[in-house]
């Protein structure tokens, strides 16, 4: 039991921070909000050279084969620097290909992701925004050597620059055996696909993607037919915990700015940070982000150990949603009118952390998953138990 990062883990994190502090100033995030592509290829290529995208991709596919925790520590720093890169949206489907794809799919995707020459995304949510199998209504119908996909996907990250998209589709009604979901790797330039950019709180690049009779070769099925919910669930859990890491990183930087501001801003004849009311806010903000970080690390550790981690992921995300939000809101409050000004950088972090609370599961959704496990499964529960029964 040692819940603090090891020396190697800390080193990876420190190097990432140094790099991003030099290469990804807030100015860049602002510029990319207005950019059509939304990311700077130069920064993307430098990150690829550092081996970041292949961090948790097996060595056989040009990756580094390191545990997910290492990738998460990098993404924590990416969150901290709010670097505008399609990093999360690329590694999430890539890791699913690594775990559930065929050998051909791995060969096609993973080395290119590791090298930084392939930007990817994934599409799950629809009109019913819940991350549940019953919310998947986009149809994929078999037709010869192809599946034909029709439906509308929402909130697809970086679709505008993605070359491939991993799409969750309905291939059968839910049955006693399975949820009738299948996952397909789709080239985004396939005829029949159109997308509309959404204007978001974080000013990031998300799209509404319409699939109209889109023909996808059968070889692009990822995982087994109708068994895709298992694949999707693992992907969503991984995506969620990696987003938690980003939230923790961004929230930490955000509150550090507020604490620094409080030490320097003079009002009533002293720095406002000398007032206990302000000190206590800062103490709480720190405690909240610490808690979010600990929960996130534990979920990551469980995943890396190959243990069921869905409850731990939900714990982390529900807590991040509530407490990272509260922390960055407090930072805004501490900055007074200044934080409300476009020219001041603080809102860049606030808008992202806030937007991320709405992505990949609301607090209600995650707590429902937890209560189901705690309450609806037989047997006593206790804190620190090896394995919380999974619903």
């Amino acid at each position: 039991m040692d819940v603090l990062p090891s020396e190697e883990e800390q080193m990876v994190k420190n190097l990432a921070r140094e790099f991003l502090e030099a290469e990804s100033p807030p100015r860049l995030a602002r510029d990319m909000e207005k950019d059509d592509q939304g990311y700077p290829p130069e920064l993307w290529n430098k990150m690829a050279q550092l081996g970041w995208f292949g961090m948790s991709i097996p060595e056989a596919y040009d990756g580094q084969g390191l545990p997910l925790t290492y990738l998460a520590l990098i993404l924590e720093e990416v969150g901290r620097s709010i670097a505008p890169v399609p990093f999360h949206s690329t590694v999430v489907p890539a890791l699913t290909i690594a775990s559930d794809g065929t050998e051909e799919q791995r060969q096609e995707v993973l080395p290119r992701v590791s090298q930084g020459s392939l930007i990817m995304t994934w599409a799950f949510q629809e009109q019913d925004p819940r991350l549940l199998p019953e919310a998947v209504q986009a149809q994929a119908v078999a037709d010869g050597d192809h599946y034909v996909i029709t439906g509308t996907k929402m909130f697809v990250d970086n679709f505008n620059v993605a070359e491939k998209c991993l799409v969750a589709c309905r291939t059968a009604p839910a049955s006693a055996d399975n949820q009738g979901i299948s996952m397909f790797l789709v080239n985004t330039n396939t005829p029949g696909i159109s997308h509309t950019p959404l204007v978001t709180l974080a000013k990031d690049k998300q799209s509404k993607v319409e699939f109209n009779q889109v023909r996808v070769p059968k070889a692009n099925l990822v995982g087994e037919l109708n068994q895709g919910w298992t694949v999707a669930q693992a992907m969503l859990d991984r995506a969620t915990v990696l987003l938690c890491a980003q939230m923790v990183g961004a929230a930490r930087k955000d509150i550090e700015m507020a604490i620094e501001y409080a030490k320097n801003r003079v009002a009533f004849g002293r720095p406002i940070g000398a007032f206990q009311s302000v000190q206590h806010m800062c103490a709480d903000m720190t405690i909240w982000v610490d808690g979010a970080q600990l929960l996130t690390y534990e979920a990551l550790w469980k995943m890396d150990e190959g243990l069921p981690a869905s409850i731990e992921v939900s714990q982390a995300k529900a807590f991040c949603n509530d407490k990272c939000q509260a922390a960055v809101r407090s930072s805004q409050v501490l900055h007074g009118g200044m934080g409300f000004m476009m020219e001041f950088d603080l809102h860049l972090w606030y808008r992202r952390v806030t937007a991320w609370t709405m992505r990949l599961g609301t607090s209600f959704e995650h707590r429902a998953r937890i209560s189901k496990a705690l309450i609806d499964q037989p047997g006593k529960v206790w804190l620190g138990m090896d394995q919380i029964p999974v619903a």
Partner: protein
Amino acid sequence: MDFAYTPEQQTLREEVRQFIAEYVTPEILAEVEESGVRSRGPKTREMYQKVADRGWIGISWPKEYGGQGGSRIDQYIVEEEFGRVGVEVGGAGSGAPAILAAGTEEQKKYFLPGLIRGEISFALGFTEPQAGADLAGLQCRAVRDGDEFVINGQKMYTTRAHSGSHIYLMARTDPEAPRHKGISIFLVPMETPGITVRPLWTIQNDPPAPRRTTYGDRRTNEVFFEDVHIPASCMLGEENTGWYVGALGLNLDRVGASRYLLSVQRDEDIINWVKENDMGGYGPSQDPAVRDRLAELWIEAQVCRLMTMRSMSLVERGGTFTYEGSAEKVWAPEHGVKTTETIAQILGAYGQLLSSSEDNIEGGVFAHNLMGAFQSGINHGSAQVMRDQVARRGLGMPRG
């Protein structure tokens, strides 16, 4: 990062659970209930001896003083399991960590084996009528007289004064020095002439709180010192460094199972209770509002656990706290209050029934918790003072 207990530690937990199932009998629990968690009746003492025989008390203390030289986490596991059934064994709050850090060889050799045998236990003599949260304002005097000190003054809310063998006394040795620099710590036998103990009865006394209640103490005390002569060898650490020795003790005292369990036991209890009880058809476990709140509390309780693990990881690495112990002491007690008050709204009118009432729930522990949970945000450093420490020591914010 490693969030696992070792296989040996898991085995230890199993062994402790088996021991508890076998030896912590209903008679012992009744005796604990009767005498209070912090006192020990004859059957409890017998059981305690068996615990000591297994080497489970003072596991992390050095072998030369009767400990096992084991890890702090092993010790935590033992304390946690006994704590869950409401029986306190050794370790945290014992004064041992501070004695190990600041004591003379003689003191270590005398106190640690005594603590392990259960013959020695400390009452914490810090608070005074005019010095609680502002501890450095204490007035109890210790005046040197040759090889002795003479103590005069009063202590307050000294919970174990009637059951402990010694008092861990903070007294002023130099009234001319700045507040924090004229204080020393003394380890004083309670039987020393001139010490008078007067009971203070708490709001948990009538009817008595069940043993697992958070701050279910029925009694605390005032302690009066009138010309109490003690040998100078009772002093712990150097003269006038007592503030720092005391702070060390408190910080270490905040780490561990008992402090953690105070804040999270009701989380486990209520979830396990709603799973088994449908309240005449209401079925709180299927009420969506209740389910959402229980999950929220569970997550927060996990944060309590992880903050405790963080503190222990720091101790195990030999690092020092900057703010982590204080952060834990803000988060966990306030969480405990939130849980307690949420449970009240789940149980409704049944939640008010005290230990002696017909139809009470789980012996009235939830009702009594409403009178005790908030106390854990006050004792051993209030949440407000802890926030000051997080901000000033942890974040480097300026003093007002």
